[in-house]
């Protein structure tokens, strides 16, 4: 590693920390100086204290939300990618499914959530379905876009060596679409967490969203905020899982 890039690495670590510390400092100062009621806005210290005090509860309530998000996301990938393959390779399927896809996407998921709850109950299934519904769209659209954006030169190369359609797909089209699929997955995984929380808000008896609502109704500001912080950590964690998957699946993307 050249000295210059080492400086860049240090900068890449130091500056974000400076930014976060500054925001937290200002926040704490504001809350302390103006003696803000913790029900309205607790300071970072109070939130941290609540996090420690309710650590077991928070951890316990993280698992259901995590599971709902991951299952919903996984389902979105499992159904979304093959559907995108069909849509990208067939004009007829594209014409048939694309309007439906757009229509389902334009329905506000928060509005459908109560209906989903009626269908699937207050258990994990309904949250999983809502998480799936919000994560599905970016996966399909980005994958289909990626499959259509194969560099023409590579397609012509495949043709010049008489590659079969399936060889062309697996050896050229699909790997070429990988960056698009990954970027769709990055959006989808954070949306999946939102979907799970929407489900928990509408009706549930566990999960961080449920805990947040409960803490709010008990006017326990610090706990509600702690649940919020844990939710965002959950989202960031899942996002980084996709980043790890990206490094494994497309090692050529990083130089």
């Amino acid at each position, binding site marked *: 590693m050249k000295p210059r890039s080492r400086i860049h690495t240090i900068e890449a670590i130091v500056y974000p920390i400076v930014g976060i510390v500054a925001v937290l400092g200002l926040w704490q100062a504001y809350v302390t100086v103006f003696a803000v009621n913790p029900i309205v806005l607790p300071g970072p210290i109070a939130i941290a204290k609540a996090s420690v005090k309710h650590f077991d509860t928070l951890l316990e309530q993280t698992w259901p939300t995590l599971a709902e998000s991951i299952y919903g996301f996984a389902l979105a990938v499992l159904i979304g990618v093959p559907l995108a393959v069909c849509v990208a390779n067939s004009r007829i399927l594209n014409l048939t499914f694309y309007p439906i896809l757009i229509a389902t996407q334009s329905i506000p998921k928060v509005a459908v959530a109560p209906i989903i709850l009626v269908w699937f109950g207050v258990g994990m299934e309904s949250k999983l379905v809502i998480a799936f519904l919000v994560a599905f769209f970016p996966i399909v659209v980005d994958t289909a876009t990626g499959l259509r954006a194969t560099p023409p030169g590579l397609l012509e190369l495949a043709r010049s*060596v*008489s590659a079969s359609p399936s060889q062309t797909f697996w050896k050229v089209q699909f790997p070429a679409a990988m960056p698009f699929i990954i970027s769709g997955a990055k959006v989808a995984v954070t949306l999946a967490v939102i979907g799970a929380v929407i489900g928990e808000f509408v009706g549930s008896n566990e999960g961080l969203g449920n805990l947040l609502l409960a803490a709010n109704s008990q006017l326990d500001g610090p706990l509600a905020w702690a649940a919020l912080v844990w939710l965002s950590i959950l989202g960031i964690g899942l996002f980084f899982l996709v980043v790890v998957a990206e490094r494994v699946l497309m090692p050529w993307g990083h130089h």
Partner: protein
Amino acid sequence: MVAAPTSSQSAGPPVGGSSRSFGRFRNVHQEFLQESGKPLVAIEDISFDLAEGTLVSLLGPSGCGKTSFLKIVAGLAEATYGIVEIRGQQVTRPQPDFGFVFQQANLMPWRNVLDNVLFPMEILRRKDAAAKRRALELLALVGLSGFENARPSQLSGGMQQRAALCRALVHEPKLLLMDEPFGALDELTRMEMHDLLLQIRKVTNATTLFVTHSISEAVYLSDVIVAFSKRPARIADYIEVDLPYPRTPALRYDAAFTGLEHRAGIALGITR
């Protein structure tokens, strides 16, 4: 231009009944229907023979149809009518014993250099130890030893095109089709590539069709130059390049060399 010209006039290629020739092109014609409904003639009437083991350049101005002609020979495009025969077989689609070098290297970023070179062998289901050995030999020949595991993005443009050349040769094609392969490279790299190609030809013996718009490139590399006119493409001149081998850079300043350049320039209508 169906009949062989009886005189030794320069403008006509010798199209005899040489059925033994490696490639035979007769009255190749290609036209498209434009949006206005009028046909656009891209290739008017191309006839010439391709002798085995030779390098024939298709020289012409940009957009004249020489690349279209090459793609017809490659089986990547279709002629409206005309005969395109390679070793006695009408070409209707790409053949496994053809190798194609594109203007862009077209390397896959997700494969390392060696796996890019082995791509045709993978498609032909012949990726074995011998194929790998040959790929490594070719990489050594073009000076890319030690870069087998490099990613294409780590290579310069010239190095990428060398790797692309290895990929076109890895399955030992009988016909090598090159579409302005050095057009995207800078002048000095291009001259290096010329000498490399001459060297490769000694080793591989593949009959080669080479599309270019560079007169000096055509003269330096070819046994025969087929000069194309502006669209619609017709043969403006058929120039036999009788320069001796081995060809070295000093040849570029030889009177015979510049004489041939002059003749090609006249054919393209850029000088008198």
